[in-house]
């Protein structure tokens, strides 16, 4: 069949619309991250601000972190009506707000020289994603050294417009420097989404949020930063490893040849047993990325360079800490959401090998400790005498319960090599059952009140009778 006449309309036809729809964009970026993580992104921005204001020293003695963040604070309010994060950590300058902070993604033109040294905020999406994830109305007010601005935006209204920008409700510049204590940012989100509101009202959800904040902010808090949630201050203990004359943690610090701008510090040893929290902790620029890992990711169950068993509960006293620092956060092996490690990173692969080698002596010690714990000498005194490893462990816990100490042995984890004489004569377990009435009679005879004591006494009876 012949086609009808074609009229060429190419020149009049506008290009096919490929412009992103705002709803789609909002949905996509908010669905790949959980609520707590989104809030953590905002907190990370504040910490970055703190770093920029007060500087950072990667060679600092971690046993005595300086109080460089003293006076700085991050306060969060989490309620059914609003979410607020307020800090005095330097603020966002008007220039950055206008050109970068609200852009979706980082433009390639904002080069590495713009980057905050040792920062965490990498990928240009954290703040926007968090704002959309939380609710339908946000307000960002910030005062930096030379400027002050307010952006107050209703998301639904924004979706209705064609433009992708956020107008300033107020923008001011100062002719002098704003004093440091007045520099900071307040982000307020209202018209919270119903799921967010429901979570915020559950006390256990808030407890969970504080747990995650505690992990993420452990290092800044050790350096004097104050963080609160609904007025309650977050306390964070410093990581510790036991040490004594005979038990010493492994400490290694170096910069890889391949990445001289990266510094790596490893601390491996033992501390009070905790089934949930034992394992490896990995920090990138002092931000905890991996907590209490017990999987192949950090070397458990590895077959090379040395063989390490899979994590079992008997290793619940194992604690390893890895700190990776760099001026350029892009060099560090974390993934885009800062929730994990980029396992393909050559840097990570090499550090992981170090971790595996470092683990081995600790595993050996913990195995020996477990064997000692489970052995049951019949005599109560023997029980104390013949548990030298546990004794040493307790000494290390009591006497020199110390911070991650530089007094470690760099080459390996050290634990007491107990000569066999101290371990006492080799023992065997005897176990049998006898009729209850007979055992009760024996208890009366020997004047003891437990079946196991009857066992010991009857054996000694034989020994004396025959020797």
């Amino acid at each position, binding site marked *: 069949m012949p086609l009808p006449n074609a009229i060429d309309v190419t020149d009049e036809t506008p290009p096919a619309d490929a412009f992103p729809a705002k709803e789609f964009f909002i949905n996509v970026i908010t669905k790949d991250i959980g609520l707590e993580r989104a809030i953590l992104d905002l907190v990370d921005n504040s910490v970055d601000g703190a770093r920029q204001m007060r500087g950072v020293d990667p060679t600092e003695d971690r046993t005595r972190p300086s109080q460089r963040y003293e006076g700085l604070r991050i306060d969060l309010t989490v309620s059914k009506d609003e979410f607020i994060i307020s800090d005095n950590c330097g603020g966002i300058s008007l220039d950055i707000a206008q050109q970068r902070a609200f852009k979706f993604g980082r433009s390639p033109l904002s080069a590495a020289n713009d980057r905050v040294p040792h920062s965490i905020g990498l990928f240009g999406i954290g703040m926007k994603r968090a704002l959309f994830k939380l609710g339908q109305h946000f307000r960002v007010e910030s005062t930096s050294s030379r400027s002050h601005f307010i952006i107050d935006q209703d998301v639904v209204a924004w979706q209705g417009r064609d433009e992708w920008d956020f107008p300033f409700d107020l923008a001011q510049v100062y002719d002098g420097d704003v004093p440091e204590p007045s520099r900071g940012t307040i982000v307020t989100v209202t018209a919270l989404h119903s799921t967010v509101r429901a979570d915020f009202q559950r*006390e256990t959800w808030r*407890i969970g949020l504080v747990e995650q904040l505690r992990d993420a902010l452990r290092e800044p808090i050790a350096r004097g930063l104050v963080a609160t949630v609904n007025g*309650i201050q977050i306390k964070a203990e410093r990581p510790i490893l036991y040490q004594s004359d005979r038990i010493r943690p492994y400490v290694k610090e170096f910069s890889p040849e391949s990445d001289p701008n990266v510094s790596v510090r490893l601390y491996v040893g033992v501390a009070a047993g905790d089934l949930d929290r034992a394992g490896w902790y990995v920090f990138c620029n002092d931000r905890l990325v991996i907590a209490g890992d017990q999987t192949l990711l950090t070397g458990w169950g590895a077959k090379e360079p040395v063989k390490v068993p899979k994590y079992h509960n008997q290793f619940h006293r194992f604690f390893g800490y890895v700190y990776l620092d760099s001026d350029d956060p892009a060099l560090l092996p974390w993934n885009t959401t800062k929730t994990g490690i980029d396992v393909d990173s050559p840097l990570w692969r090499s550090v992981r090998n170090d971790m595996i080698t470092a683990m081995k002596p600790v595993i050996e010690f913990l195995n020996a400790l477990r064997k000692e714990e489970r052995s049951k000498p019949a005599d109560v005194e023997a029980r104390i005498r013949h548990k030298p490893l546990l004794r040493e462990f307790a000494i290390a816990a009591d006497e020199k319960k110390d911070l991650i100490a530089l007094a470690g042995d760099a080459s390996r984890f050290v634990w007491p090599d107990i000569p066999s004489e101290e371990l006492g004569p080799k023992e065997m377990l005897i176990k049998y059952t006898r009729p209850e009435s007979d055992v009760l009679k024996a208890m009366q005879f020997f004047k003891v009140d437990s079946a196991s004591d009857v066992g010991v006494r009857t054996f000694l009876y034989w020994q004396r009778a025959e020797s």
Partner: protein
Amino acid sequence: MSGRRRLEQRPSFEAFNYGLRPAKHIERRLMVEVFQRLNVFHPVTRYRYVGMGSIYFVDFVLIHRLLGISDLVSIEDQEDPEKQRRFSFNKPFRSVRMMFEKSSSALDKLDWKVPSIAWMDYDGMIAPYVFTDVATVAALAVPGTILAVTLNAEQDSVSPKESAREITELTKFAKRLPAGKLPLDVTVKHLQGWGLADVIRRMLCNQVIDTLATRNGTLDPANPMVFRQIFNFQYRDGARMTTVGFLFYRKADEPKLTASGIEHLEGYRSGGDPVVIEVPHLTHKELRYFERQLPIVSGQHLRRVGVSERDFEAYRKFYRHYPTYAETWV
């Protein structure tokens, strides 16, 4: 019955035998008063009662006699068949079913489509399995089900040696709990006196809230499963004890709850304000004398014959529920 309670040698002038736990008896009576109102949900006689009767089955006797409930289940964590015989022998009624296993495994096995009154009278300290048990019932209970939990509310003590290692009553308490349950604002001060009982109450409420939030994910959002805290008892026959109770129902059932009138009962408490049961030390003669002056009419002049106002008031509050004892000749 564990060896925890020893029958005290009762001085002959004491009206109440503290070895028989009069405060607990009063609590039981107040709770049964509430149970009697459950008819708004289902006929009470068709309920199932799940408890931990021990060898005396005191609660089972009361429940069966006053409420007519025959579907009775007693949970006892006892593996020894010899000892199990003792429990079975002491069953007060034919229809009591014994379940000899841990509470968590027993609750898991029961059919919760049956409207139930479950009184988990643990007697011991809070522990992770308590949270699990509460979650099990909250996840499965049908509307009209009541869950009550009784726990020891005494603070741990801290030895000077532990104190030197920076162990506090709070850290010891936290160790008894699963991760992420201790409310953020709790400090050592909150655990003193009856404070610990209230922290327990808050945590168990939170557990119910969390479990129901998950459960409601697949229910009609206009008619979610909700709960009301109905019991908050504090008493001590020996150690401090607390009982927290929950009633589960659908939002649409709210009028039924109001109609039941439980909100006006003496044993009902829906918040942090507890029912405190104190049993004063009175003589027989004082008891008889006071009884005759009750119930109080306004303007009445009370003859306390030297008994403190506090003790008299403690008696007056629950005088209707006091146990009566009889002396007999052999």
